[in-house]
């Protein structure tokens, strides 16, 4: 059976004056209907770029320079913009990181939700409003009728993110890409929003690509995950497996640095060093300068992403 979304050897390049910068290199993954997947990594690892690449919305001077993105059996990475617009916000919706910045401050939320429907459906105002209200109820906005004529600044951060989620639901998309949807919110709201997303994916049979640096959230919400480092996937597989038995030393480090079992006052684990700048990725394994168990081969040869014993894919030379 073919997958709902297939990303194959995706490469994204930023054509800068100082030369090309490869932001994403050889990234492949698949997503099935109703499946939830997490993409994890530090800032600058290329996870957001991956998300934007799927809907072909990378800001200039970036561009998809290689690979294929197949959605519903159709190659979409090379579609002209007018065709791509029929998919964006319609079949594949996106939720952004900061709900305070995502809604246009000078239009009511009613306007901003209705226009999405008008862009994708030939629909009367009355019917469109009905759908908008239905979706607002679905994300638990109280008395949505009154809310339509309000402006974004009249809502709290959590409420705005709900509105954005409701907006992304309007067209019953097959996939929602959520780019750090809870990073800008406080912790109690974070949990609410994640629960809501999970609940909606279940009830609407939507696929979810959750881009985050929060391993905790990923392990709660997703079925499978990919860990990105310096523009590449270095480990991917079932979430439960990766979280319980990580293979790549970077993933191990990420899991070890979660504030889970520590007593108060104890120091959190930290992976030494920083992720390299994309212009100065070291030869061999990109992680080798920070790796605690590295061997000679690690700084010479780049490890391929291969299946390991536990069933996950990992890019590491070392056996275990």
């Amino acid at each position, binding site marked *: 059976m073919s997958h709902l979304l297939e990303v194959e050897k995706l490469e994204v390049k930023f054509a800068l004056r100082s030369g090309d910068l490869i932001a994403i290199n050889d990234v492949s993954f698949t997503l099935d209907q109703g499946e939830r997947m997490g993409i994890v990594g530090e800032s600058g690892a290329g996870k957001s770029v991956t998300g934007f690449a799927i809907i072909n919305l990378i800001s200039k001077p970036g561009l998809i320079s290689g690979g294929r993105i197949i959605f519903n059996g159709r190659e979409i990475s090379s579609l002209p913009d007018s065709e791509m*617009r029929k998919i964006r916000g319609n079949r594949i919706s996106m939720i*952004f990181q*900061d709900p305070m910045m995502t*809604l246009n401050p*000078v*239009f009511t939320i009613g306007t901003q939700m209705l226009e*999405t429907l008008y*862009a994708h459906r030939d629909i009367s105002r009355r019917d469109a409003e009905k759908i908008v209200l239905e979706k607002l109820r679905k994300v638990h906005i109280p008395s949505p009728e009154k809310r339509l004529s309000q402006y974004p600044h009249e809502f709290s951060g959590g409420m705005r993110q709900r509105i954005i989620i409701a907006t992304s639901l309007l067209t019953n998309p097959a996939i929602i890409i959520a780019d750090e949807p809870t990073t800008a919110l406080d912790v109690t709201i974070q949990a609410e929003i994640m629960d809501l997303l999970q609940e909606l994916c279940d009830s609407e049979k939507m696929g979810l690509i959750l881009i985050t640096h929060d391993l905790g959230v990923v392990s709660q919400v997703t079925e499978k995950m990919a860990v990105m480092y310096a523009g590449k996937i270095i480990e991917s597989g079932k979430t439960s497996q990766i979280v319980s038995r990580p293979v790549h030393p970077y993933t191990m480090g990420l899991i070890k640095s979660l504030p889970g079992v520590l007593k108060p006052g104890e120091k959190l684990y930290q992976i030494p060093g920083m992720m390299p700048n994309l212009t100065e990725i070291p030869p061999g394994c990109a992680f080798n300068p920070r790796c605690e168990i590295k061997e000679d081969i690690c700084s010479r040869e780049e490890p391929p992403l291969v299946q390991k014993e536990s069933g996950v894919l990992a890019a590491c030379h070392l056996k275990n």
Partner: protein
Amino acid sequence: MFAFIVRRITQALFVMLIISMIGFAIKNKIGDPVRDLVGERVTPAEREQLRDKLGLNDPFFTQYSRFLKNALQGDLGHSFFYKKPALSVIVAKAPATIELVLGAAFIIILVSLPLGVYTALRPRSFFSRMVMGFSTLGVSIPVFLTAIMLIYIFGVQLNWLPSYGRGETVDIFGNGWWQSGFLTRDGLLHLILPCFALASIMLPLFIRLIRSEMMEVLETEYIKYAWAKGLNPMRIWLVHAFKNTLLPVVTVFGVQIGIMFAFTILTETVFQWQGMGYMFLEAVERSDISLLIAYLIVVGSVFVIVNTVVDIIYGFINPTVRIAGRT
């Protein structure tokens, strides 16, 4: 909204009070009404007597409150040249200037909006680069030079457009006060060159302002989100981005319209345009202090009124301002 408007108007009144005080201080220190009233032969003692009678030896604030009281009743002093109340001299000259400023503002809006938006959307295109080049040039050429150049090219060499006076005008209210050039072909032709000359200072500024505001807005998250919603580019540019671009531009426009009233002095002089600016320069030559002060106060109030109106309009298009006014 109501509270917001009331607050704005209170502020405007306060500014007016300060303008009147400055105007009065100038008049008090520079002008000598006694000299205007009497001849050479009057002795210093008699002059002093006259001063007492006219209240010119009263303390500053007593005189100022008298001046303010008169000003509030529409009496801004007497022009000794025209032998008429200064205010009525100015009011008679105002329509010409207002039409000039309106025409220039119209040109600025009509030209700067499309050019500003286009150069923001296609910053690298050849046309955008040309527009930006010309606007740099435009900013740096003083208005009287532009005016003379326009007259030379379109009035003298090509002989396409009239270069002085207002041409044929129509009396709008039937009492001879507002002679409008907007309603006749000849009047409109006479407006073209002066309006372009006056617009030439502000136009490059506005193209640049709109361009930079628009470019900034295009980089925001909500525009990116609008793209992610799959909206039509025209809707994203002309509705989402444009409205946000306009917010700061409207404010600046208000200030600049006020400033344009002041710039009419140069334009009107070059084009022999019988408006307030031309009158002002004549008043300077004749040392007609009362008229000068009246001009200062009238232009000051125009400035304040325009800005207040613009602020209120801004409150209508920017929802966050309205909220601030409610609390």
